[in-house]
C-alpha cells in the first residue's frame, strides 16, 4: 500500500517568497559586522550580494536563513521571522553552505533523501526519482553511494546544491556557490542557478565574488562593504556606477609597480 503522504508545509507551497531586511545590525562582541542594512528582495528574483572578504556577506545570509539573531533590526520572509521554527514549517528554505555542510556519516544519496524522508513529503519511489534527477542535473550519478569524505571540494559543492534542489525550496540561499570550482563547473553552476529560477519558481539569494555570475544572471546586485550597503541595483546600473570603491572592487587593476599592500603599509 502506498504510504500516506504528509506535507508539513502550509499555505502557498510553490510560490516564491520575498525577503525584507530592515535596519539590520549585527555585532560580535565589540566588532560591528553589519551596520543598518536595509534591502528588499522580490519574490522570484536572483539577488546577488557581492563585496570584499570580511564585509559581512555570509553573516547577512545567515541572518536571512534565521541561523543567527540580529543585534538590532529585522529580517522577514513574506512577513515572517525566519528565526521562528513556524516560519520554516511555512516555507521551504534551503541554504547551500560554502563548504557544503554535507552529513559526513551519510552517503550522497542519503544526504539528498534526508529532507523528504524526514518530512515525509512523498513515498520512497518518488524520493528516489527526485534524488536521481538532482544528481543527474549536477552530473553526480556516479557518486550516489560515496561518502562526503570521498568527494573532491567541487563535488561536495555540487552535492550541496543537489541537496537543495531535492528540497524544492521557495527561497534558495547560496554562500559562494562557485568558489573553488574550475571555470567550466562555475559556468555550469551559474546556469543551474538561473534555470532553477524558472523551473522551481524559487527566489535565489547568492553571496558571491564571481563577477561573471553576478553580471550574467542577477536580476539585482547588492554591494556590501565594511558591513554597509553601498549599492543595490541591476547589473547594468552596477556597470555604470562610478563610485571609486565599487569601480575598484569590480575592476581591480593589478599594478606591479605600485602594489596595494605597499600602499596599505604607507597609510
Amino acid at each position, binding site marked *: 500500500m502506498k504510504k500516506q503522504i504528509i506535507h*508539513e508545509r502550509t499555505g502557498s507551497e510553490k510560490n516564491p517568497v520575498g525577503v525584507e531586511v530592515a535596519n539590520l545590525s549585527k555585532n560580535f562582541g565589540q566588532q560591528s559586522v553589519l551596520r543598518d542594512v536595509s534591502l528588499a528582495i522580490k519574490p522570484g528574483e536572483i539577488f546577488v550580494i557581492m563585496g570584499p572578504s570580511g564585509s559581512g556577506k555570509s553573516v547577512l545570509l*545567515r541572518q536571512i*536563513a*534565521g*541561523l543567527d539573531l540580529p543585534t538590532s533590526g529585522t529580517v522577514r520572509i513574506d512577513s515572517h521571522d525566519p528565526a521562528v*521554527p513556524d516560519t*520554516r*514549517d511555512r516555507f521551504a*528554505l*534551503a*541554504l547551500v*553552505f560554502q*563548504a557544503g*555542510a*554535507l*552529513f*559526513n*556519516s551519510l552517503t550522497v544519496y542519503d544526504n539528498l533523501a*534526508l*529532507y523528504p524522508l*524526514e*518530512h515525509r513529503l512523498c513515498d520512497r519511489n518518488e524520493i528516489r526519482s527526485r534524488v536521481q534527477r538532482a544528481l543527474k542535473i549536477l552530473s553526480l550519478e556516479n557518486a550516489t553511494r560515496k561518502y562526503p569524505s570521498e568527494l573532491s571540494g567541487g563535488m561536495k559543492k555540487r552535492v550541496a546544491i543537489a541537496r537543495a534542489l531535492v*528540497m524544492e525550496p521557495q527561497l534558495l540561499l547560496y554562500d559562494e556557490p562557485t568558489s573553488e570550482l574550475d571555470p567550466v563547473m562555475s559556468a555550469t553552476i551559474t546556469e543551474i542557478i538561473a534555470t532553477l529560477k524558472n523551473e522551481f519558481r524559487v527566489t535565489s539569494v547568492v553571496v558571491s565574488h564571481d563577477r561573471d555570475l553576478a553580471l550574467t544572471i542577477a536580476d539585482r546586485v547588492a554591494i556590501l562593504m565594511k558591513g554597509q550597503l553601498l549599492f543595490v541595483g541591476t547589473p547594468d546600473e552596477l556597470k555604470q556606477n562610478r563610485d571609486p570603491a565599487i569601480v575598484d572592487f569590480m575592476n581591480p587593476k593589478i599594478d606591479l609597480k605600485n602594489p596595494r599592500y605597499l600602499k596599505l603599509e604607507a597609510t
Partner: protein
Amino acid sequence: MKKINAILDAFGSAVLLAIRAFASLPSAPRILKRMVEQAFFGGYASLPIISILSFFIGAVLALQAGISLREFGAKELIGTLVGESLVRELGPVMVSILLAGRVASAITAELASMKVYQEVDALVTMNIPPERFLVLPRLLAVLLYMPVLTIIGIVIGWLGGAVVCRYVGFISIEPEQYFQSMKHFLTVGKMIDGLVKSEIFGFCIILIACNTGLRTRGGPREIGFAVTRSVVFSLVTILVLDYFITRAQS
C-alpha cells in the same frame, strides 16, 4: 564568578535540550533506526570492555574482602560483600564511568564536529530539529541499554568474585557457598536501587555529551576541548549524583 556562570549556563542549556528532545517524542517511530544504531554502538559494542572490567572488579573485591575477613574468621561473608557492593555501588558507577569514557566522548566529538562544520546549521535550515534528529535517539537508546549493561556487568563481577574465592588458596570458598551468602542478603529492592542509579547516570552522561557537543564553537581545537570537558563533567556528575542518590535510597 565567570566559571560559575558558565556551569549554570551549561546546566540550563542541558535542561532545555532534554525538554526540547522529549517534546519531539511523538516522532519517536521516525527515529527508531537511529536509536537502534545508537543502542548498538553504546550498548552492544561496549559489552567486551564492560565484561573485562567487571570481571576484574569482582575478582579484586573478593580478594580484598578475603584478606580482611579471614582475620575475623568471616570468609563466608565474601559473597555478601561482593554481591552488595556490585549491585548497589560499583556496578552502576563503573559501567557509567566506562560509558563516559567510551560513549560520551565519541558522542561529543561527533556532535561538536557536526556543529563546527555547519552540519547542525544545515539540519536547522532543513527544518529538522537537531534535538529530534541527534539527541533524542541517543537519550532513548541509553535508557534502553544502560540497565542491561549494568545487569551484565554485575553478573560478570559476581563470577569474577566466585573464581577468586574458588581458586585463591587462602580463601577457598566453594561457589555454592559464595552465591548462597550473596543470595541471603540481596533483595530485589537493592537490585532496583542499583538499576535506578545506573539509569540516572546514563541519562545524565549522554545529555552532558550531547549538550557539550552542540554548544561547541570555533574550530578543530575546540572539538578536543569539548571532549575533555564532556568527560570531566560526566565523571564529576556521576560521583556527585551517586552521593545524593545513595542518601535518598538509604
